[in-house]
């Protein structure tokens, strides 16, 4: 019987070899996949471990806006957000059961310490028998500008929906980004998980108006008169116009193919049948820019808009399960009346506040639009730089040549000095700006835009402010009344340093 017994031994050997190989497959080759939260979000072990880990901080000029502090419960560390309301949409949130948001989500691998760039640190920690620590992330935010933007929106009232974006034109660094209403990420990160869940549910109840919604990037609205900057840029770029060119400035513009006319805000004329392009921008003359738009054509307008960033998704530093940058758009194939309306930022033109800040930043940076970014540096647990974001140009640059950009800046200065945006003026600093008031639907109150840059000769900041549902009377809503003072405060914070 020994021969079959030997054969059985070989058989058993094969069975055990199969077990060994399979265990190796599961615990070695498949292990990374099994422990990846993006592949298997229901993996409680990984989730709990990440929740209990000492995460790195999110820093603004060296001060933490998100940090992990020791806690005496089972999870060892409590994520806290020292300036929670002000930075909520940037830091995002770190929760056990409700996912991750903002930079907490997009830079999770660095913050949690699982990034391959931190491999050496992990090995050292293992050798020293220390718990692995996460790296830190440093933001481009200017804390004073952020504070000014937040205070400015708050001053308009708790219920005011609005947002502010400020960009450093030469680099694309985001200096301030605030969205109102805001939320408290501390209440999501709490270890009282039922309270955190209830809070998240409440935050999500508002749908698109949810406080979790980052209005600076997530929604597009017609930019109204602020889009006249794009039309003006296209006009200057065409070579047919300069700031002193004569354009129609009457009370109405006959829209071709229709029986309706395009009229100015208030219904009057802009100061004569023929006015200069600069004057048209100063008084935000619909008739002038409608006819310039008709003259240039929809293609030229769209091309100019796209050079400023319309039509592309350019910003992903805050992408999480709920957040994506909305793509700003210029209508695909408008007929003539639609083109005229588009040229003044109505009809189907729609932009995010970030996009309008990029328009101002492009004009400020002598015509070159830089890709906006929020994460400046990632740092190891010992605060050595792992990676620094290099400024880069947007595709298809420059958006306009430097001379035209300088002309347009000067025209924007006139708007502040002589036109609709006097409320944005800062003593001793040349400020350029453009107001906008637009309407998305007849039954909804209009909203106010303001786009600006300062100082006009060598701009160090470009700002876009959007104020919706300000709770004031319809006829009081205007870019200059509501939005411009907020933009001025932000510019002062940056320039005044």
């Amino acid at each position, binding site marked *: 019987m020994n021969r*079959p017994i030997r054969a059985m031994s070989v058989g058993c050997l094969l069975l055990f070899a199969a077990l060994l190989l*399979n265990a190796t497959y599961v615990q*070695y080759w498949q292990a990374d996949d*099994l422990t990846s939260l993006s592949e298997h979000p229901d993996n*409680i*072990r990984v989730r709990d471990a990440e929740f209990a880990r000492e995460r790195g901080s999110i820093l603004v000029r060296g001060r933490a806006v998100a940090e992990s502090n020791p806690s005496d419960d089972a999870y060892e560390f409590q994520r806290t957000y020292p300036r929670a309301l002000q930075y909520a949409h940037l830091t995002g949130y770190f929760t056990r059961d409700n996912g991750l948001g903002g930079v907490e989500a997009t830079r999770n691998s660095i913050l949690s310490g699982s990034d391959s760039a931190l491999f050496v640190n992990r090995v050292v920690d293992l050798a020293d028998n220390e718990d692995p620590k996460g790296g830190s992330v440093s933001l481009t935010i200017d804390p004073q500008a952020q504070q000014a933007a937040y205070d400015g929106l708050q001053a308009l009232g708790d219920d005011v929906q609005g947002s502010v974006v400020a960009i450093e034109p030469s680099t694309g660094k985001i200096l301030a980004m605030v969205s109102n209403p805001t939320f408290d990420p501390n209440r999501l990160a709490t270890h009282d998980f039922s309270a955190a869940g209830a809070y998240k549910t409440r935050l999500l109840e508002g749908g698109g108006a949810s406080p979790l919604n980052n209005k600076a990037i997530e929604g597009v609205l017609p930019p109204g008169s602020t889009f006249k900057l794009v039309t003006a840029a296209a006009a200057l770029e065409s070579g047919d116009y300069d700031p002193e060119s004569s354009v129609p400035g009457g009370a109405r513009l006959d829209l071709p193919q229709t029986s309706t006319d395009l009229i100015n805000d208030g219904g009057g004329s802009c100061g004569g049948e023929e006015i200069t392009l600069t004057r048209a921008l100063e008084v935000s003359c619909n008739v002038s820019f409608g006819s310039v738009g008709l003259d240039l054509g929809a293609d030229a307008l769209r091309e100019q808009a796209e050079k400023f960033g319309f039509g592309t998704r350019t910003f992903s530093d805050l992408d999480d399960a709920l957040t994506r940058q909305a793509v700003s758009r210029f209508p695909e194939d408008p007929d003539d009346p639609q083109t005229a309306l588009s040229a003044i930022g109505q009809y189907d033109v729609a932009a995010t506040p970030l996009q309008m800040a990029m328009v101002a930043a492009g004009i400020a940076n002598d015509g070159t639009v830089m890709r906006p970014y929020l994460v400046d540096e990632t740092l190891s647990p010992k605060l050595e730089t792992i990676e620094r974001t290099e400024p880069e140009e947007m595709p298809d640059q420059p958006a306009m040549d430097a001379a035209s950009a300088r002309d347009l800046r000067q025209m924007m200065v006139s708007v502040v000095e002589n036109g609709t945006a006097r409320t944005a003026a800062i003593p001793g600093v040349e400020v350029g700006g453009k107001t906008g008031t637009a309407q998305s639907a007849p039954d909804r109150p209009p909203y106010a835009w303001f786009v600006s840059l300062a100082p006009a000769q060598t701009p160090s900041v470009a700002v876009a402010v959007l104020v919706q549902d300000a709770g004031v009377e319809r006829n009081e809503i205007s870019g200059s009344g509501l939005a411009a003072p907020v933009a001025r405060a932000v510019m002062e914070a940056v320039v005044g340093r």
Partner: protein
Amino acid sequence: MSSPGPSTASRGSGFVHRRRRGAELVLLLLSLVVGVGAYAAVGLGVDGTLPVDLLTHGLWLTVLLLGCHVVLRRFAAYADPVLLPIVGALNGLGLAMIHRIDLGRQARNPDAAAFASTQLIWMTLGAILFATVLVVLRDHRRLQAFTYTAGLAAIVLLLLPLVPGLGRTINGSRIWIGIGPLSFQPGEVAKVLLVVAFAGYLVLHRDALALAGRRLLFVDLPRGRDLGPILGMWLVSLGILVFQRDLGSSLLFFGLFLVMLYVATERPGWLVVGGSMFAVGAYLGYLSLGHVQTRVAAWLDPFDPDVNAYQLVQGLYGMGWGGLVGRGLGQGQPQITPLGFSDFIIASMGEELGLTGVMAIILLYGILVERALRTALICRDNFGKLMATGLGVVFALQVFVVIGGVTRLIPLTGLTTPFLSQGGSSLVANWAIVALLLRISDQARRPPPELVAGDDELDSDATQVVNLR
């Protein structure tokens, strides 16, 4: 193992095995280090301090294992020296892991039952049964007289869970009987009895069953009229699958019978016949039985949200989380996996001891099976050969089916992991199996009686010197 000295060989007896009880003692101490060390590590990992009952637990384990060792020295001096230490190490590891998961479950629910202390009592019973078998059964061949008794008893035991009022359905399988608060899995005992019955039956009928029938592709198939026994066993296995919904035992019993039949007759044809019957049975089972389909679907794609494979997925997550070296005892979350202390204990081991620990455990089982088959090879009587083969193959199949199922090599079937899993019936039965193996190996390794001058001379220094050279 021991190489014969030249003078021993010249005595014409071939091998003379050394007793190697000293080696067993050293290995046993190592296995105690593993078991007690793991228990201490659990305390350190969970609470940061040594467990308060470390001393009593360690002493209890030591007394049990050393007691078994003494019994071996006295009643089976030539028995294989590796088996007991392996069993000791596995049992000690299992106790530590069950205790660890008790702590994990009690952290959530302070009223959760503690299984580790019960398991230690079962281990004590197992060790007592171990000693009893070795003391009472001086020659395994006496079991041959109980061939049909054992067979009948096994069938009765297998049927018991189906008796109304006595049988209990636990976790979907009706393989338990309950008397008052105690529940027992008679199938585990039936396993041992079946090996005895098969061995006794096949020794008598091997010549008839080995007669060749038709020849097909180099393989001699058995004669049609000899198909009775295997058909009977096939139907019994199908019955277990259908009425008790116990995929694992069904597979185990049929595989066991098939292997023993093949070894007894030396006819690979039986493997062909049996393999075909297994395939037919498995396919029929898959077509008609919902719980088999569920298991197969979970095996193919456990991560499909439509498939209910929570336990399997959590086990895999645990093993993946453990990685190469594991989280460390007490530092994972094995309590998340349902039944992480019994059927899925290997996943818990993988989580806290890593691939390294899982490989070590699989290798321990591998050595266990290897020692059993080696015993079968050197055994001098056919009944002993068959029994040792059967007992070894029971371990091999059971380990393959349960570890393969948990690690998604094959569809999951509920079986206990020998010596590791929580569960009294299984533990006691496995201790009995090891006792039987040691008894057979003692007989096999003992020098043939006619060459033994007497116990005194064997223990004398002269013999030792010869053997040591």
